[in-house]
């Protein structure tokens, strides 16, 4: 893992539709390593990396989305508080009291909340009632600093709790971006790679749709970061469950290697690609897991039905607490995912897609 690269990408502030910050870091990192580098109308970074033996092989698109979930300023109250709403899937229960950064200048702010002295009975604030306090005295002062449309991101910084883990905001999916950057920094591949760092995944897979339409690949691999909840079941009826009830489904587990999606709400993974990835991991001795829940969707949902269809697979790194200020990722899962891609991508051939 290139920790410095991931640190810079995690710290980049880039909610869906305002991905400039992440885009700049990625372009600087891959310039000179790829050909046909360009930014399309929606803001996707597209590029190609020709293979040394590209002729006759499938054209593989590898993607990672750049955008992160966050909030956006929608107005300012007379008291100088920022009214805002969410961009992408965000859990209102985690927001009160949280430190956030507002606008291009990353003004420090805090999500409004009543201290415990004044109300123990306080419920979480619904997203449509959410306000952010930047310390302004009134609307005029706030309006000098902030405009409607300014993005609000988590302020929490990137850190390494220990040598084996990293913690930070936006690891979904800057970890995928870092992985793809590292992959592109490798020497030439036998196969042609088509590359897309996509925008607006978190609000509906919008960038990936046009990227796939533009690149028209034969196969696509989506690099993602996916929820792991490999933790004790602390829900109210956990004791009862211990008496023979259903086991807790963690979706994915940290440290168990890259997770393959069999099916999610937007895509059923092509069984040929599943078999290819599983065989490749087995041959290379890389641990692999299957995501054991269907929830959510990825860029694959848009890519596989683009044009006349694209066989697509999702390779994801498990992370706890995604879509929060401090997601937790194991370095080993990142490294195993990178190793898996380096191992299997050169073997992708027309035979991989043969039907019996």
């Amino acid at each position, binding site marked *: 893992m290139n920790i410095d690269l991931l640190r810079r990408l995690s710290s980049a502030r880039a909610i869906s539709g305002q991905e400039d910050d992440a885009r700049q870091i990625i372009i600087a990192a891959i310039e000179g390593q790829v050909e046909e580098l360009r930014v399309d109308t929606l803001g996707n970074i597209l590029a190609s990396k020709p293979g040394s033996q590209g002729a006759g092989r499938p054209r593989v698109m590898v993607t990672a989305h750049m955008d992160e979930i966050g909030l956006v300023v929608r107005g300012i109250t007379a008291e100088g508080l920022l009214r805002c709403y969410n961009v992408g899937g965000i859990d209102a229960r985690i927001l009160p009291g949280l430190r956030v950064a507002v606008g291009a200048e990353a003004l420090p702010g805090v999500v409004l909340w009543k201290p415990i002295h004044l109300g123990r009975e306080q419920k979480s604030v619904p997203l449509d009632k959410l306000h952010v306090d930047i310390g302004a005295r009134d609307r005029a002062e706030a309006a000098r600093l902030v405009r409607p449309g300014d993005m609000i991101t988590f302020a929490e910084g990137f850190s390494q709790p220990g040598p084996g883990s990293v913690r930070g905001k936006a690891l979904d999916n800057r970890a995928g971006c870092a992985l793809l950057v590292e992959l592109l920094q490798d020497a030439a591949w036998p196969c042609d790679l088509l590359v897309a760092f996509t925008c607006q995944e978190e609000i509906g897979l919008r960038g990936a749709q046009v990227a796939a339409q533009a690149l028209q690949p034969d196969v696509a691999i989506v690099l993602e970061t996916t929820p792991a909840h490999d933790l004790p079941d602390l829900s109210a009826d956990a004791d009862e469950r211990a008496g023979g009830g259903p086991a807790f489904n963690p979706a994915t587990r940290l440290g168990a290697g890259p997770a393959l999606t069999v099916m999610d709400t937007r895509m059923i993974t092509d069984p040929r690609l599943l078999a290819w990835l599983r065989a490749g991991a087995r041959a290379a001795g890389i641990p692999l897991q299957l995501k054991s829940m269907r929830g959510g969707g990825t860029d694959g949902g848009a890519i*596989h039905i683009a044009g006349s269809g694209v066989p697509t697979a999702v390779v994801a790194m498990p992370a706890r607490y995604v879509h929060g200020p401090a997601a937790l990722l194991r370095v080993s899962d990142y490294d195993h995912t990178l190793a898996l891609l380096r191992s299997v991508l050169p073997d992708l051939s027309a035979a991989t897609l043969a039907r019996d």
Partner: protein
Amino acid sequence: MNELIRKLTEAWGPSGYEHQVRRLIQEEVAGLVDEMRVDALGNLICRVGSGGKRVMVSAHMDEIGVMALFAEPESGYLRFEPIGGLLHSTLAGNRVRFEDGITGVIGVHDSFGVGRTSVPALRDFYIDVSDGAGAAVEAGSPAAFWREFETRGTRLIAKSLDDRIGCVVAIETLRALGRQAPNELHFVFSVQEEVGLRGARTAAYAIDPELGIALDVTATGDEPRNRKMAVTLGGGAAIKVHDSGLVVPPAIVAWMEGCAAQEGIPVQRELLDAGTTDAAVIQVARAGVPSGCISIPCRFLHTSSETCDIRDVQACVELLRQLLGRPIELDAA
């Protein structure tokens, strides 16, 4: 025709895993078409005839089922996610079959308590695949419901008549046409309809048709206290006017009804307020495609005992053959 219906309805093919059905259809249509290919998602696309209009006819190969994604660590019970729109009230005690032929039985929490009269959430169901010797089904395996085909008079009773009966209509129409048609016909046996019309979308993009026709089952209104619909089982081929994803252009309805009247084929009009077919995505492919649907009336949809009537199936075949076997003139609306 019943043997073909048996063969296709008893075949295994949950969405995304249609290969066994596709193989049976490939064998069946070989010699009936000018060209066939399998596209990136697995649609089987068969071309026959030339000249006239470029028409896409779509019947989906996939069926609803379950995806076993999580095995309980100690008991080995499989927890599953739905493939397509499962009816929870039909699950307990039902059997599913995995690709390798292993059969599982679906159970439900507290089956003689809450599970007896209520309709539990999907997370309360599980699949037992134990064989008493410790063999297990691997997590990540899809399964389809399992039930044998039966007939009762003119009634056909089977799992996955949705939409293998549409595939049968397409195959029998190809047989009746005998590779003679004054139109460029693309018969698509599509994948992944039940999870969001995904196969027909990409096939329509590739074919770029001038006219789309889906062949699919539709609900009937002749069951007690069920949805109010005019469609009856045995009432003839159902010509779709409207469903929740498609408004059929009046010129297409008129074309179909005119042909049926001329040929004396029994038909009825269909308006469906909950559900749609491949035609819904064909109509929005590229710059747009006028699209309609010929529906086969079917009771007990999405259960293991879907019920059609052979006379309706025959009417659908005859109507489609007459429509496609002559030059197509659609009145400007």
